[in-house]
């Protein structure tokens, strides 16, 4: 089952928790700081996502939306 996530990177604090939680390693840390000075998480390997919501579950900022086909 294919999934998709959207991260509100403006509000991301680059805590790595979603990265660590993703069973499919879809998320990596970005190279550019956002307005708050953090390196935000980026949904990089979109095709691997299964929409399991693990990332959203652990995100302290509650800024991940998860979609499933």
């Amino acid at each position, binding site marked *: 089952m*294919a*999934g*998709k996530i959207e991260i509100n990177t403006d*509000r991301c*604090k*680059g*805590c*790595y*928790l979603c990265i*660590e*939680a993703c069973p499919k390693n879809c998320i990596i840390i970005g190279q550019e700081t956002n307005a*708050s000075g*953090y390196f935000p998480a980026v949904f990089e390997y979109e095709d691997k996502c299964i*929409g399991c*919501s*693990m990332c*959203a*579950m*652990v*995100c*302290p*900022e*509650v*800024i*991940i*939306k*998860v*979609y*499933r*086909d």
Partner: protein
Amino acid sequence: MSTLVYEKPESLYDRKTHYCPGCGHGVAHRLIAETIDELDIRHKTIGIAPVGCSVLAYNYLNIDMVEVAHGRAPAVATGMKRVKPDHIIFAYQGDGDLASIGCAEIMHAAHRGEDITVIFVNNAIYGMTGGQMAPTTMVGQIASTCPNGRDPLKEGYPMQMAEILSIMPGATYIERCAITDPANIRKTKKAIKHAFQRQLDGENGFNMVEILSPCPTYWRMSPVDAKKHITEQMTKTFPLGKLKG
């Protein structure tokens, strides 16, 4: 055609938090908000924000809230619940707030068996004031007021509030959870929901969900390491599971 399977709950504002990266308060807020949504009790829920890093909880939870004096949330909750018995009253408290300055208030709310819910976010430190020792600080843990690590002979062993409160017959449901990983976060959510549901059902008694929660900043750890620390160390001192009810 993709469907949205997860987004923030209604009862949570879409707003930047003031919390440090990887802080546990954000997840705790979310679980409460989801519970309120799912039980459809937003109109009759009143939240109590403590003094602690979560003092601004009312900026995130989209419900009626009150901010109260440090440690006194259980007394405030008592006052509220007694005059609004049909409302769901919950107090959100940190470990300094609940176990230290507010020790008498939490003990007596449980003692009287007040029909309230306490969400006890135990991060083993005073976050807001800059990382001082809490009653729950782990043995050996360094804090700004125990610079050489907590010494149980001078400062005592970490205080197990869930165990202590469980002795009280007035406390009818107490569970300790941890927001370390999706499985435990799910358990935490279930516990919060159970606690609120009890109030909703008019089941008598004080109930509390303790949440082991990371404070990466004052544990001087990355958020990922902080969560590991909970799983590997903290749960030894504060075993997870249902203590009562």
